[in-house]
Every structure is written in C-alpha cells, then in structure tokens.
C-alpha cells in the first residue's frame, strides 16, 4: 500500500517490535495477535495494523514502557499517525490528499458552496409552505436530484477508489466467511471492548461509553440513510411527495436515526472534550471533531426541520440541512469517514490471517 518510509512508520515499527518482545497486551484486541504473527513490519503491514487498531487506549495505560519511561512507548498514538497516512495514500483524486489535514476548511468550504448552490435555486424563502411538494416549492425537485445525485455519486466513486486501494492491500481474496467475521467485528466493535471489560476512554477507567456512543452514531447514520433511501423510492417509484406524514416509514426512520445520531455524536463530542490527551495523536483529532460536528449538525438540522416544517423557518432550515448533507457527501472521501472502509478492510484481512485454513 505504502511505498515511502515516514517518521510515523519508523516510530510505529519501533513500538511494535517492543510489543512483540513483551506481548503483555495480547488480550486487549486483534492487533497484538496480528503483531505476534510477524517478526518484521514492512510498510504495508503497518498500515494494516494501524487500521486494525481501534484506538481504545488500553495498551497505553497498561504499558510498562509508556512515558516517562525512556522508551516513551505510545502505541495508540503511533498507530493513529500511521492510520492517517495510510488513508491519505489511498485518497483519489490524489490532489485532494491535503484536505485530510485541513478538515475544518474542507468541510466548511464544501458546506458553504453547497449552501450557496441551494440558495441560488431556492424560492419563497420567507414564507411557510405546506402540503405535498412543499419542499419542492422551495427547492425544485430537479435541483435536489441534481445536487444530491451529483455529490453522492462523486462520494461513491471517490470512496470506491479508496476502498479499492485498501482492498488491494489485503494480499489475497477473502472468502465469504472472512467477510462475515469482519462484518461481525465491525458491527460489534469488538476491538473497542478492551478484551471484555471496556477500554480506558476518556480516562484511565475502563468504560463502554465510546463503543456504545459509536453504536448509536453509526446505527443512527444507517437508519437516516435508510430513511433517505425509502424516501427516494416513495418519491420516484410510488409518486408520493415529501413532506411525508409523521407516521410514514421515512419519517419514523429519519427521526429514530436522527435522534440516535445526535445522541451518539453529542456523547462522543463530550467524551472527546475530557479525553486524556496522552494516548492520542493531536494532529489526527481535528478530523474526528469535524466529522462529529458535521454529523451532529446534520441530525439536529433534520430534526428541527421536521419539527418546524409547517412554519416560515422551513425554507432556511431546508437549505441548511441540504447544505450540510451535501457537504458531508462531498467530503466523505477526504476525511475521517475513510476510517469505515479502511477499518473494514483491516478486519477482513485479520479474519483471513486468523483462518487456520490459510496458514
């Protein structure tokens, strides 16, 4: 996957070599057994191990060689740096790689441009609209489809290119059972479990807080995504026009998804504010914060839009929500969202390596 040797890679390799001679953290996650399957750590393997690491911090607080020890070992931070580099490597088009390190500017810019585009085509911004098709009275359906479709397609293509690069790093073709195992590990975030007792985040005390909050966020995200998909079907196949009644499938899914997303993102933001900075790689945190903020804003604006859709606040809220969603689509392939495909690929590779039939 990666060709050039960086300082982050050298530091991670040093750390993993020490771990391989120590092995005390073997029970925390899948990373340590994967370390023990190796004697050397070439660049591609570092990327794999870095994406397999879920950043639970268990191996920092347990480490007998953590600072102020002269070896100053910080496995989570070292792997977080390599992880970001590995994402950067796979970003397509390559000219946009720098955006990973400027997430706020990238996201704010994308949201702004999307907002302006939506505003340019908006009508009747200062009055209430009701009844079927009310949203399209503000922004014409064709514009919605053009903006949404184009940005989503772009995200899909760019993400697919990135995922393909990650896939090539797998070093083999997975069998369905490997995909199922990876799906299980991703859905449960088993590796954020600290070997069963929770992981030390935000502080030294083991806790399931982050894992549960992520479940809420990712689960909510999937529900919200499902809501959008159902709405698209309703709209185009069934000819029903949004806004939908409260007890329709898209609204129910959207509300559940929005609430879960908001709760999860808010919890993660709060945890992040009090998180012990020692095991974290400071330069990777902005990407986390920006995605968290964006997802929280999408969920909040969607919920408020639902609540106030009969009022004069609807048109500006609609433009805002649309701008945030479009901004999210466009920046997905250059930001923290990349952790999804990369982590999944790492889990697949781990399942392949663990498979006794392949050894």
């Amino acid at each position, binding site marked *: 996957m990666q060709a050039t040797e960086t300082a982050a890679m050298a530091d991670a390799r040093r750390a993993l*070599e*020490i771990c*391989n*001679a*120590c*092995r*005390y*953290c*073997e*029970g*925390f996650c899948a990373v340590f*057994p994967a370390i*023990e399957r190796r*004697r050397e750590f070439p660049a591609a393997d570092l990327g794999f191990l870095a994406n397999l690491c879920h950043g639970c911090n*268990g*191996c920092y*607080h*347990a*480490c*007998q*060689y*953590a*600072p*102020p*020890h*002269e*070896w100053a070992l910080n496995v989570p931070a070292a792997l977080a740096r390599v992880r970001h580099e590995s994402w950067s490597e796979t970003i397509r088009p390559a000219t946009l790689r720098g955006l990973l390190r400027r997430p706020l500017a990238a996201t704010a810019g994308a949201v702004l441009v999307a907002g302006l585009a939506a505003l340019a085509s908006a009508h009747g911004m200062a009055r209430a609209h009701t009844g079927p098709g009310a949203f399209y009275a503000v922004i014409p359906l064709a514009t919605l489809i053009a903006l949404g479709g184009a940005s989503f397609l772009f995200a899909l293509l760019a993400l697919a290119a990135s995922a393909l690069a990650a896939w090539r790093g797998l070093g083999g073709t997975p069998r369905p059972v490997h995909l199922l195992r990876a799906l299980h590990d991703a859905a449960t975030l088993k590796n954020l479990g600290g*070997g*069963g*007792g929770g992981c030390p985040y935000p502080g*030294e*005390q083991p806790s399931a807080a982050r894992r549960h909050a992520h479940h809420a966020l990712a689960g909510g995200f999937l529900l919200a995504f499902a809501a959008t998909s159902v709405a698209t079907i309703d709209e185009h196949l069934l000819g029903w026009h949004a806004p939908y009644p409260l007890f329709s499938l898209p609204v129910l899914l959207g509300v559940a998804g929005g609430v879960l997303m908001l709760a999860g993102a808010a919890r993660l933001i709060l945890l992040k504010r009090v998180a012990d900075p020692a095991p974290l790689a400071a330069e990777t945190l902005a990407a986390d914060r920006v995605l968290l903020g964006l997802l929280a804003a999408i969920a909040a604006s969607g919920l408020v839009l639902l609540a106030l859709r009969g009022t004069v606040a609807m048109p500006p809220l609609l433009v805002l929500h649309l701008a945030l969603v479009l901004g999210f689509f466009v920046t997905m392939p250059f930001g923290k969202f990349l952790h999804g495909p990369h982590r999944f690929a790492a889990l697949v590779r781990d399942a392949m390596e663990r498979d006794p039939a392949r050894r």
Partner: protein
Amino acid sequence: MESVQQTPDILVPDILVPDILVIGGGHAALAAAITARRLGASVLVAEAAPRPMRGGNTRHTRNLRAVHDAPRGTLTGAYLEDEYWDDLLRVTHGQTDEALARMTIRASADLVSFLSDCGVRFQPSLAGTLSLSRTNAFFLGGGKALLNALYREAERLGVSVCYETPARAMTMRQGTIAEVVLRTPGGELRVVPRAVVAAAGGFQANIAWMREYWGEAAENFVIRGTPYAQGDVLRLLLDGGCAPVGDPTQFHAVALDGRAPRFDGGIATRLDSVPFSIVVNRDGQRFYDEGEDLWPKRYAIWGRLIAQQPGQVAFSICDAPAARDFMPSVYPAVTAPTIAHLARALGLDPLALAATVADYNAAVRGGAFDPTVLDSCHTEGLAVAKTHWARRIETPPFVGYPLRPGITFTYLGVRVDATARVRLADGTPAPNLFAAGEIMAGNILGRGYLAGFGMTIGGVFGRLAGEGAARHAGN
C-alpha cells in the same frame, strides 16, 4: 486522618495519625491497603515513585501462580498443593520454610478472586507460554494494568495515596514503631501510625549496597525493574532490630540483551538465544554448557554466570537458521558475513572467536535437532561441552547478541511469621510491624525462582499484613 483525605502536599499538617501506614506502592502494598481499609481502618500509602512510575517491580509482572483443584477461569487443569510444593522445593533446593510455604500455597487459591473483585482482569496464558497455562494466571495487560485496577479500588475505598513520598526514617522503641518520617515533595512529614506494613521491595537498585558484596562488578549489572528499589526500608528495619532472612549476597538474575536500559527494561529485554547458540565471554571463550537443560529451567542461572565473567558481559553467537528459533529481542541482532566480521562488530578478538567457533563446529555430533526435548545434538571432546541442541555455526549471515546480567530481585529480607508479622532479632514478634512482598520473600524463596511465585507471595502476605495491621489498629 480526616484532615488529609486527598493531597497531603497541598495540605501538610505536621503529623499524620492514620491507623495504618503502608510503605510501598506495589502489589503487596496495595493488597495490604485494600484489605485493611475494607476492615475499616484508615490507611495511608506512601509510595516512593511518582504516579506514572508507581508500583515498583509489579509494573513489569505478567502472572501469578495459583493452586487449584479444577480448571478455574483462565487456569487449565489442576495444580494441587503437593505438586506446587514439590516445584518450590526443587527450585529452592530446600532453602524455604515448609510451613510458611504451604500456607502461602494454600492461600494462593483465592488470590485470583480477590484481585478480580478489585477489578483486575485475567487473560489466557500469553503466546509462547503455553507451559504456564495450567499453573499461572496472567493479568490482562500485565502488571501495570493490575496496578491501575488496584489503585482505583484503593482510592474508591478511601485509601490516601501519596506519591513521591519515600519513607526516610523510623523510630522503633522495643521493636514497636513509634514514628515514621516520610519525605514528600512538600517537605518532611511525620507519621504516627498504629501499625505499619512494610512492602517496599528489595534493594537491587541500590548499586552502592550491591557493591558491598560484588565490588566493581555491580556497576555493570542491569536492574530489570524499578530504580526505586533502594532498600531504604529494609535497611531501616534491619538496623531497628528486625531479624534478617536470606543471603544478602544473592540475587535472582537472568541473561538480558546487553543494550538494555540500566533500569526498568522489564520483560522485553530478555533474550532466549542461549540454547540455540554458543555463549562466549569478552575473551571469546565459552564458559558454560549452553545446552544443559530446557531453557525455562536454566534461564535463571545465566544471569549469575555472566555476572561472574570479566566485565560482566557475554556474547551469544549463532548462524542465520538458528536465529529463527528464538523470539526476537527488542534490539536488532548484530549480523556479519563472517565470524571474524561478527567478532569485530561485537568488539571481540576475531582470531579468538574464530578459533572458538571452529573448535566447537568440529566437536558437534549427533542427530535430529529438537528444541522441545533434551535432544542428541551434542559436542565431544571440548573442555566446556554443549550437551544438547549443538548445531554447527556455519550458515551466514552470522548473528550475535551482547548479554549482561539482569537483576530481578535480591533475597535478603526480614523474618516474618505466618501472619506476616515481623520477627525481631531476639525471636519475639514485633508488636505493630508487618511485612509483605519482596521485602520478606526470602522467608520462603531463599534461592532460585518459580515463575509467578513473587506475585503470589506479595498478594498472600499483603492481605495477611493488611488484616493483621487492621486488627492491631482496632484493638
């Protein structure tokens, strides 16, 4: 005690009067503090190290040895008292106390559940330690994770913990501890406790003290664990009239990668290359049978063997195929295309090393190499034989590692009885002084070592000391 619940360096009254003062901050100290606090005593823990380095040698541990009659938790099979005792007898060559030892072995039965209740978690035996899965319970994340859980539990219960606070002086009257002086970051602090638990470890990090027995050589020892094991408390107790136990000149030592840090290198600097190589001293000469017995049974003698060589160094030499047979060290192997080049890279005389290797290669005999049994690969006709696993060193690149003695702990301690109460030199029990852990391990472990037994002694005696001290304070 009420006046200083949290941070005595902010709020330093002249004198503290806790029920119990626990000196030390490792496994033994915390087992005592938690036990005493649970019995209602007010407890002050004085730990010499700063918080990030708290916990002494316990930071570097990975398991304890527990008796059990059926599979329990991560422990497989059964490990009964008599087998445990036999194992101990074998490693100590009888330098133990059967009554104390059997009591410890029996008490190890519920150590795992005591620790689990404190939030410590366990994991199956680590890769490469399958042989210990029956006898030893491994801490998830190792000793530092164990300590984090114990400190959390102690703080939750309301034990006061002072870091960077070594005990510096002690007033003993007729064997009773009247006062202890602690040195805190904010100045001296006088403590007048009802009872004291001494759990401050051995003295292996005190090079000046080690020099008394080992002379110049002590300067070349690597200390595997904490630099805070200065033995100050042990010395105060012995000077105050407590009965000594254990040979002061002796310590447990293993062969380490010679590039290990002076202190706190822990487990990762260990090198298991010896049975797969030949080991030469600074003069390029072999000095001991590298294949005498299976490595787990022999690894602990190599520390002392190297400590007795000139300059306290040795070099493990093998070839490329053999280097794949042992765990990698944290430091890169020194490699070279010829033995002479390897000698130069290691700072050895090329002619001497080449001659040693040539003689050895010529003497190698025997059949199928098998590292898991005492195989028939041996040498013939050498002054120093290699009796097993002898293979010619002939396939480049040649591989070398420098070795040094790494001191784990010292055997000198204070004598205790079966309630962890310290004995005075005249044989009478000290009224308000208890000891636990390495500072008294010599009572049971007078020689040798049994993997996981150090932590077992610390836990068993820590709990006894905490209980005894709390009962004493309650009266």
